[in-house]
Structure formats: structure tokens, C-alpha cells
């Protein structure tokens, strides 16, 4: 009886799943989340995030119509990325931002995001040092080195940057060959 039931179940399965025509299942258009929403930073404290935004704007400002870090939402993206990152990377960023604010207050009596161009350039002096393979001895130097690389990548890989730059150069498509996960 049990066997008959099993065979009966098999027989109920159609030989092939009939294909739907394009009319029966038309191609639907979808949007990415950012098309209709703003990112919500949550990893850094407010003073840290304010310093991060200022730093991003200094490292890669908008130049001649090309989006800068702020237009590319790079600070918000890095807030998300750092929130997902290993603890040592999180510490590098949090300590680095705190140090920028502390140095700014000590020297100029205001937070980093309130500094003018000359004052912030003073605080960002490590970025004027020649790069080499030796890890910077001071934590803020190491942080600024990491932040420079991350802001540049987060910006040039953004939809906003690529939309503008790909209009100017055929070589700036921003696409790559993606290997799909295979079960």
C-alpha cells in the first residue's frame, strides 16, 4: 500500500515543467535600496562620524563636476563597512577619528570638522609624508593611510562616480566579471 502510494505520487509529477512565455512572465524592473532611501550610519559616534565626513571631503572632494567622497556617500558606506569589519580595523578607525578630534581641540580649540583648510592640513600632516612599506609608527598615521585608500576606493566604486566618469571615458565602466556562487 505504501509502495503504491509512492508510485502514485511520482505519476502526479508532470514530465516537464511547462515554460512560461515572455508574455506570461514579463521582465520586471527593480531598483537598488539606495534609489529610494538614505543610508543610516550607526557604527561611529556622532563626533567620530562628523570627523569622518570632513576627512572624506578633504581626501577626495568634488572636482570639476566629478563626485567627491560626500556625493558618493563614501562616509556612510565606510560606517557600514567598518561596522562589519574585524575588531582591529574598527579600533584603528575609531581611535584615529578620536585622535583627529583631540588634536584639533588641543591645537585649535574645536573639533576636526570645524577646522579651516589651513588648520586641517596641519592635522593631516602625515598624508604629506612619502609612502613606504614600513608601517607608520604612530596610530594616526596608520589610520590616515588606511582612510585615504578606503575613501578613494569607496568613491571611485560608487554609482555616482561611475555614472559621471563613464560618460567621459569608455575605459571607466566600473564593471567586472563576477563569479556566481555555485551550490
Amino acid at each position, binding site marked *: 500500500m505504501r509502495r503504491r502510494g509512492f508510485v502514485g505520487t511520482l505519476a502526479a509529477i508532470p514530465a516537464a515543467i511547462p515554460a512560461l512565455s515572455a508574455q506570461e512572465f514579463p521582465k520586471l524592473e527593480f531598483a537598488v535600496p539606495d534609489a529610494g532611501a538614505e543610508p543610516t550610519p550607526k557604527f561611529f559616534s556622532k563626533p567620530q562620524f562628523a570627523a569622518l565626513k570632513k576627512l572624506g571631503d578633504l581626501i577626495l572632494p568634488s572636482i570639476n563636476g566629478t563626485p567627491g567622497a560626500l556625493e558618493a556617500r563614501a562616509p556612510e558606506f565606510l560606517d557600514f*563597512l567598518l561596522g562589519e569589519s574585524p575588531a582591529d580595523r574598527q579600533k584603528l578607525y575609531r581611535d584615529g577619528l578620536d585622535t583627529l578630534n583631540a588634536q584639533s581641540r588641543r591645537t585649535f580649540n574645536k573639533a576636526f570638522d570645524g577646522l579651516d583648510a589651513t588648520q586641517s592640513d596641519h592635522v593631516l600632516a602625515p598624508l*604629506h609624508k612619502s*609612502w*613606504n612599506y614600513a608601517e607608520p609608527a604612530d596610530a594616526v598615521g596608520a589610520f590616515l593611510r588606511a582612510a*585615504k585608500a578606503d575613501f578613494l576606493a569607496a568613491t571611485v566604486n*560608487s*554609482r555616482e562616480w561611475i555614472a559621471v566618469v563613464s560618460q567621459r571615458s569608455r575605459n571607466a565602466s566600473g564593471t567586472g566579471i*563576477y563569479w556566481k556562487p*555555485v551550490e
Partner: protein
Amino acid sequence: MAATKYDVLIIGSGASGATTARQLTKKGIKCLMLDAGPAFDYEKDRVLRPVYDLPYRGFGKPGRFPHVTQANEFTAALWADEKENPYSYPANDPYYWVRIRRIGGKTLVWGRASWRLSDLEFKAKDHDGFGDNWPLAYADLAPYYDQAEPLLRVSGRKEGWAQLPDGIFLPDESKDSQATARFITAATKRGIPTTKQRRAQGTLASSANLILPDALATGNLTIVPNAVVREVMVDKATGLVDGVNFVDRHSKRELHAKARVVVVGASCLESTRILLNSGVANSSGVLGRYLFDQFYVKNTVQAIVPEARGGRPAAGMVGGTGYIPRFTNLKGKDKDYIRGYAVDFGSGGTPEPKYFPAYGEELQKAIANHTGAGFNATTMGSVLPRFENHVTIDKKTVDAWGIPSLHIEARYTDNELKMAKDAMNTLAELCEASGFELLEKHDKMVPPGESIHELGTCRMGENPKASVLNKWNQSHDVKNLFVVDGSSFVTGGSQNPTLTITALAMRASDYMAEEMRKGNL
């Protein structure tokens, strides 16, 4: 369904396993190939995607691949997941074990550089007294190199050098740019040879498209993906291996496959791991010993070609790549280290932003001004095979299928450090002599393993008390067990190893087939 007993069971579908399958099946030998990774469709399973649509904007999921610097968000699915496939190493000596588990193995993304070894490597002990010779000479392997190069479609230029034997190449008649020609002239004046790259050509140069189709066309090959081998099994009555136990990757079902001969080609350290977990082929006690690779000093020099500044270098001014083969200690010892290094060099790239000590608009101007004006060179050095660099089974660290993994101990020593320093100073001198402006020079090696050229741990040798395999990649202890990948190397030189792995697998397969025909296996 009764399981078929195959003539030969092959573990792994990369360069060595696929080559073995091709050679044997063409002689009518029935082969079963097990691979730990999945099958995939090269056309359908790869798509063009904009980087901004990836969840992490190209950065990749943080912490997913702490030891795979080659991984990025586009290729993340390709590399063996480190959580599923853990391993261990001493706290202060990280080892970067880079693996791919898919049909085709690492040949899906290899650098394709294809250089022959010479008797400077095969008979290295005769030359400088260190370590051991291989149990075979260049002349023994040359006929198989002759077959491997056309199979992999290797292009190159013949030079007539003893330390880097010529082969059967697709000709490379490409012209050198002015910048590259200047560098070559500066090297030549100092007695340093240069040549074109020798590389496998084509959109894809993998065992999956160049080697396995031939084997499948014979009708003698059965490939089973998702088969994670747990151990090789020994028949206690005969002392011979009679098959393997494996785990289905998805269901974790345990299975056993039988064969007359077992060939292990699972990649260097995976092969040794399987044998150590099986408790076979180790009467010498050196299984797992003599781990080495090639050390890399990436971008040993980064320089600027001054006249290429401005953002749009004139046609022919920059571009192209080249290679410096080993040129030190060729006829005795002329350095404070033994053996030597090779160099990949190229001009026409744009230096990474980190090289410019600036930010903001000043940085963007510097990048624009140096677009295409870069010159860089990477050093690949010979690492001495040392007994103390080794792997053992770490029973506390098991993979997702409950199989114990490896503890890996490898350190570079004074010989490698001196070599790296010499390479740095030599390349800096060549840049200066070429009229390039040096942005940075360094001799910091990447951690052992990162070059993905791990070799040794199951080495060949004449002496069964000091080696695992004989000169035919055959176990000294168990005559129907062969190991055909890079684990069999005795020395490695500074040449990328895949071409030699392929040639060795061909040679071992021919011997295996003949022994089977004679009834010895």
C-alpha cells in the same frame, strides 16, 4: 546501482590530476576523478556586474578571506571558504594557504607563467651543496615539457640559456616600448638577461578547457564533483591502496570508491593532508617535511618614466612586460646567498595613489599627471627546502566535513632575506640607469604561501628513508599510490611551477600506464 571499480582513481582536477587523466584515458585506462569542488558553467556562472551593485562596493565582506589577498568581491565565490576550510599556524608566523575548490582548481585563475626548470634546480645539490638533488635530470623531463607547452599554448621567445631552457612556444614577436627597451639595455650592460614572458594564451587557459575535454572525449573518464576525500584506504592483506573514502560535499554522505591505482593530485598541501590523515606512505617520516615555495616581493620597485608624465604618454613610449631569469650563482657562488631570483617587470601602468604624498585636489592632479607613466618590478625568489618547514595534522582543527586539517610551519631565513635585499638594490640601480624616477623600493616579502607556489612535503628522492616518492612520483612504500602535484618537488627555483607539474604528471602517467600494461600495478 553497483559501483564500478575503476583502473585508476584520481583525486583533483587541476593541472596535475587533469593531465594524469588525459594521459591515461587516451591509452584506454578507465579513470574516476574526484574533486572536492563543484562543477560549473564558465559562461553562465560568470556575469558582468557593476562594482557598485556588489554588497560591499568591491571591498568584499570584511574578514572573509584573511589569508587570500588575491580574493576580491568579484571572485569571492571562487576561493575556498576559510571558515569551511580552516587550518592553523604558529601565532607569529602566519602562512597564507590559498585554495580553490572547483573543477579546474587553481588553473582557473593561475598567472599562466610557464618556465622550465633546469639542472640548476634538478641537480641543485651538485651545484651548491645544499639539500638534495631530484632523482631525475632535465633531460628526463624535457620530452614532457615539449608536450606540455603546446597543450597549454605557451608563447615565448627562445634565448638559448642553460638556466631557463627553451621550449615549444607560440612565437612572441611583440616590440618593446621605449621605456621597456631602456630598462633592457641597462640590464644587458650589467650582464643581466631579459626576455619576453612565457605564458599560456587564450581567454581561459585552464585544465577545465584545455585538458579535461580530451580525457572525457575518450569515454574513459568519469568526473565526480563535490567529493571531499577523507582518506586513502589500504588493503591490509596486500599493503596496497584499494580506493578512497570520501564525503559528499552537500549531503555529507560517506562513500567509498575502489580502484587498482590511486593518484593524488589534490594540490600540494591538500595531497599531503590526505596522506597524513590516511597514515600511508610515510615510512621515511618526511611526509609533510621540506615545505617551500617562492618568496615574492611585490612591487620591489615602483618608478616613474619621466617623459611619460602629463597623462597621455605618446604611442610606443611605455607599455609591455618582460622577465629577468635567474642570473646569480650560475657558475659558482658570486653572492652572499645561494641560488637566485627572477623578476617580472612592466611599464605603462599608473602607480597606486598611496605612492603620492598628497590628498584632495593635489592628489588627483598627481594621479592624472602620472597616468600610464609607471614602471614596476616584482621579485620571485628561490626558497630553500628545509626539513624544519613542515605541516602536521591538527586534530583540533577540522573542516566542515569533519576532516582534520593542517598545522603549517614555514619561515623564510637568511638566504631568502639576503636575496630579497640584493634584488631590491639591483632593481633600484637598473631603474636609475634607465632614467626612471624611483618612488619606492623595498624588500618586504609577502608571507609564506601567498605566492600560491607551495611545493614539497611529499618529495621525490632516490633514498626511501629520506623521501616519499621515487622518480616516477610513485610512493616508495605503496607501489600503486602516486602523488603527481607540486608536493613532489625537491627544489623549485624561481620559476612558476605549473608547467613542471604538468610535465611531471605526464611522465608519471606514461610510467603508470606501462606498469599497468605489464601487470605490475
